[in-house]
């Protein structure tokens, strides 16, 4: 697997280390990967946005 480095603020890194242990992840990297995957899944969630759009059209808030 190819790895890339990402800069993370020191205070945030401390929290990542702390919470990855508390939550039972095998490493901070695994925790960060899992968190980012969840965040990206939300960004890619297009279906529910379509449903929301229909509702907002019904309410007269968008054309």
């Amino acid at each position: 697997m190819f790895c890339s480095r990402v800069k993370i603020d020191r205070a945030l890194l401390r929290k990542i280390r702390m919470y990855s242990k508390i939550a039972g992840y095998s490493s901070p990297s695994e925790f960060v990967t899992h968190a980012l995957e969840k965040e990206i899944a939300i960004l890619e969630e297009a279906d529910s946005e379509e449903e929301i759009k229909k509702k907002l059209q019904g309410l007269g808030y968008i054309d």
Partner: protein
Amino acid sequence: MSLVRDLWLRARWGNPIVVVSGLPRSGTSMMMKMLLAAGLEIVTDEIRAADEDNPKGYFELERVKDLDKSGDKTWLKAHRGKVVKVISFLLKDLPDDNAYKVVFMRRSLDEVVASQNKMLVRRGEPTDPASDAEMIERYRTHLRRTEALIGGRKNFRWLDVSYNEILGDPRGPAERVARFLGGRLSVDRMVEAVDASLYRNRAR
């Protein structure tokens, strides 16, 4: 830090546009009324008139409704320093040639959906086939998605304001909004503009 950020925003993009946002029925019109009372200039064409759902008016601008379509958005520049209402769904479509200070209204999602359902019935529109629980989940995802899409944009500053907190005691939220927008707003007038009698869809 926020003062430095404000100066940088202003130097790069000019006077920020104040955007009142949130889900429909989350208190955006109430916040518009508060900012109007506080002395800010509100941008509205008053095409959408007051009705039973919003007896004090909607404070909307029809052009905003087309932000998600491609087209000229340079008209927004003329509203720098003024207040524009943009629902959460359209925030991501604001162009990057302005700075924005977003006052984002939060309200219990149970209350938002209940209020929207009543509004749909009054408008004679079909109510959503999805259950309220499904709709709340969709909105929860939508709000997180909106935060993620805006979070990395340097020309945005963001303040969350609780509708439910305003109706409980408006002074604290009004002071935070005044500080966020530069501190020269009349907090007393913002507080006086709140009409708790309009709080009709309370979570049980």
